[in-house]
């Protein structure tokens, strides 16, 4: 096991968290490689968390330039124009993140995520897409699923004071504690494509409305060629039209997706920092679980809404229709 052991420095630094998840889990974390695309407030929180946790490497992809919006909820960007002028968001965040834990390799990858080949993703154990378009999320998920190596796939999206996390771990074996014993479990996750195409009618009544609302927004942004958050109250009529069509196609009533929620999501384009901390925290916990193979993972959506204060797990798959 030599060379596999945690160094003395690692043991001292990670002492408190090793007491939570154990040395084996920590070892696995230090060997894991995470790809992160799309960095705003929530993803910045996520990155901070996994860097602190001591993952092997974090590769950042976000070629957008730093602007006022970026400065808002992203504490990784110092408000010094001299420091960030001409640099991409990924580049600035990379510098800040390295500081949190010098043992983690943080780097930047330039270019368009959706243009990457399947082989590109093989380097990673975890892929996280923040604020991605419907097309990108589908395409990348498909590529991850094609690989023989299992790459854990996550999407995260925060608007206003709400957040959505999606998880796809494909065929996943893990251990969990039941009473005093360790139990071996297995889960089968639906792909992203499947998870967002599930017919609405059979989905249980009490499912978080955010699921449906996010699907409407996804379609809207795709149809209109908009980036995440590139919308306003003026778009509401269009959004409601899309909602109407989707509800009709799924033979559910329009009350299935509250208009007020849709309005919140398209007007609240700036992320709400407390929600970023919460959603970014939950996402990091999930990634840590998946890498370590310990603990029951989220299956397969998580929703947070600061208005009602609930953070719920929803399981959405074609099992409803069978």
């Amino acid at each position, binding site marked *: 096991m030599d060379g596999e*052991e945690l160094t003395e420095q690692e*043991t*001292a*630094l*990670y*002492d*408190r*968290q*090793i*007491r*939570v*998840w*154990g*040395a*084996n*889990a920590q070892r696995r974390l230090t060997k894991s490689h995470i790809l992160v695309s799309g960095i705003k*407030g929530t993803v910045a*929180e996520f990155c*901070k*968390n996994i860097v*602190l*946790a*001591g993952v092997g490497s974090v590769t950042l992809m976000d070629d957008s330039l730093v602007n006022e919006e970026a400065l*808002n*909820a992203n*504490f990784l*960007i*110092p*408000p010094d124009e001299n420091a960030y002028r001409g640099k991409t968001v990924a580049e600035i965040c990379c510098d800040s993140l390295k*500081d*949190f834990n010098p043992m983690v390799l943080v780097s930047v990858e330039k270019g368009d995520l959706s243009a990457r080949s399947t082989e590109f993703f093989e380097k990673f154990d975890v892929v996280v897409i923040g604020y991605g378009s419907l097309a990108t999320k589908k395409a990348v998920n498909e590529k991850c699923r094609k690989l023989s190596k299992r790459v854990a796939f996550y999407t995260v999206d925060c608007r*206003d004071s709400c957040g959505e996390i999606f998880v796809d771990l494909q065929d996943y074996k893990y251990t969990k*504690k039941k009473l*005093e014993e*360790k139990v071996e479990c297995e889960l089968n996750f639906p792909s992203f494509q499947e998870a967002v195409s599930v017919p609405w009618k059979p989905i249980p009544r009490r499912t978080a409305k955010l699921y449906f609302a996010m699907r409407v927004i996804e379609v809207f942004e795709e149809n209109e060629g908009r980036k995440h958050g590139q919308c306003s109250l003026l778009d509401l009529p269009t959004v409601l039209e899309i909602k109407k069509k989707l509800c009709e196609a799924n033979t559910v009533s329009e009350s299935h997706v509250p208009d007020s929620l849709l309005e919140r999501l398209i007007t*609240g384009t700036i992320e*709400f*920092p*407390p929600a*970023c*901390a*919460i959603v*970014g*925290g*939950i996402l*990091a*916990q999930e990634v840590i679980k998946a890498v370590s193979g*310990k*603990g*029951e993972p989220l299956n397969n959506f998580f929703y*947070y809404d*600061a*208005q*009602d*204060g*609930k*953070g*719920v*797990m*929803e399981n959405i798959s074609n099992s409803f229709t069978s």
Partner: protein
Amino acid sequence: MDTQQQQSSIQGAKVLMVGAGGIGCELLKTLALSGFQDIHIIDMDTIEVSNLNRQFLFRRSHVGQSKAKVARDAVLRFRPHINIRSYHANVKNPEFDVDFFKQFDVVLNGLDNLDARRHVNRLCLAADVPLVESGTTGFLGQVTVHVKGKTECYECQTKPAPKTYPVCTITSTPTKFVHCIVWAKDLLFAKLFGDKNQDNDLNVRANNAASSSKETEDVFERAEDEDIDQYGRKIYDHVFGYNIEAALSNEETWKNRRRPRPIYSKEVLPECMSQQNGSTQNCSATDDDSTVSAMPLLGLKNPQELWGLTQNSLVFIEALKLFFAKRKKEIGHLTFDKDDQLAVEFVTAAANIRAESFGIPLHSLFEAKGIAGNIVHAVATTNAIVAGLIVIEAIKVLKKDADKYRMTYCLEHPSRKMLLMPVEPFEPNPACYVCSKTPLVLEINTRKSKLRDLVDKIVTAKLGMNLPLVMHGASLLYEVGDDLDAIMVANYNANLEKSLSELPSPVINGSILTVEDLQQELSCKINVKHREEFDEEKEPEGMVLSGWTQSPATNGESASTSNNENEKAVDVTESSSGPEMASKKRRLSETQPENDKKETENVESDDDELMEIENPVMVSKKKKRVE
């Protein structure tokens, strides 16, 4: 979230944060990002390496510096125009009085101990400032809101006190590893290296009133030139061999219990070890080396490794030798410190040898350290989530959105699909002596118990008063303060030694005492009832206070390391930072959350709180009178 109104109430708010640690760093960052512009932060601690896995505002280069100050500097770097005022001080200091608290719109706690939380709770009540409380342990967390008159105060539901164990369990009949740790830390370590004037129960034997302690006392004294190795073996043989044999001679004790086996050094360790690897005599290091450690000298590298009896014995002797060889000056003044590597090694070894003797499973140094040091396991993510939740509640408080106040529980496993579960706060408890001024009842033997007992056990310990004052009618029996003159102090000291019924204003059955803490602005009435007898086992303190009730044992002891892959039964220690699920219901508009609480750690059935696990003060706190 929404409007101008919200933004302006945030921007104009003056916020006090208590604690700049795990929760504090995350909280300060989120407050700053959320638009808060006037933040004060109190923390008495300095930065340690083990903080760096989650207290992300700190760097290695900051170790040793003030947490509050460094946190402030770090946040100002990405929000340079806000006002952050840091205080490197104990929140219990008199400078943080009611007037200090009154200047804030809301107080946010990120503390790690019950004592400070109670203190802040009282000051917030006195100042009528809302308090948002929080706590995390591992993956569990919670945030609660306390607004005077509207919701429970922090003490309306009593919180679990630190775990304690009966003396006899520690000295004679241990059954769990934690008992061995307490023995090793608070008895053996204290006896060998701590204050010699402190009473120590190391040689106390159960059911044996007359122990010839004078004789055995001398065993622990090391003669000037006594060979360290020999001395070490002598101690080893005495505590693990002779003492066990002596205990075995009492048949009664072992009738229904597993008998321990005596262990002697010669059966475990080869003779003349001092010639082997890295003898302390041959070390060229200076005589005063506080970083010295036994493990490397014995080729032991991995703190997670389980040592056998032989290895533990080697560590025991070697650590003891190193204390005498390299840290002689400290002997007689040492208290156990979890960051003192040599002390941790010694205590681990001693506890393990004792465990071996009693048939209790051994533990690694890593595990032993956690138990002995009351280490709370912690990760960044839970703190970040809780910080977000705190800010959300703080905003509601500022907007006076009372209907929206929530207590939020952050769970490890979903309960009815929820990982984050909001619950409406409860109304104030009409029987809470802190916020509802309910009188308490104290049963005590007024002829035998002294005022000192009442002050120590009730006023300070149970009631959590910091600078108390005890009155009987108009008569001031006792008080603490800087401004007392010598006559008053002498008077109070004399009172402490008197039994209650002999006080200048006699306290007898039916008397009503008033107990106050002026700093906390807390005043309690205690109705005194005389009782002759108290059960030694069940009521070892010789007094019973009611109206102040211990919370039920099922109240979510969460610190058990359910994720510890080593599967050892790591016992629960201080859990004041963990979530406490409300087991009593009050008014709830949400449907009752399931109590999906994890397995509660075995609560000791012999529940007598006699020996605190975390500090070396024994039951009988009396110092030996210096002749």
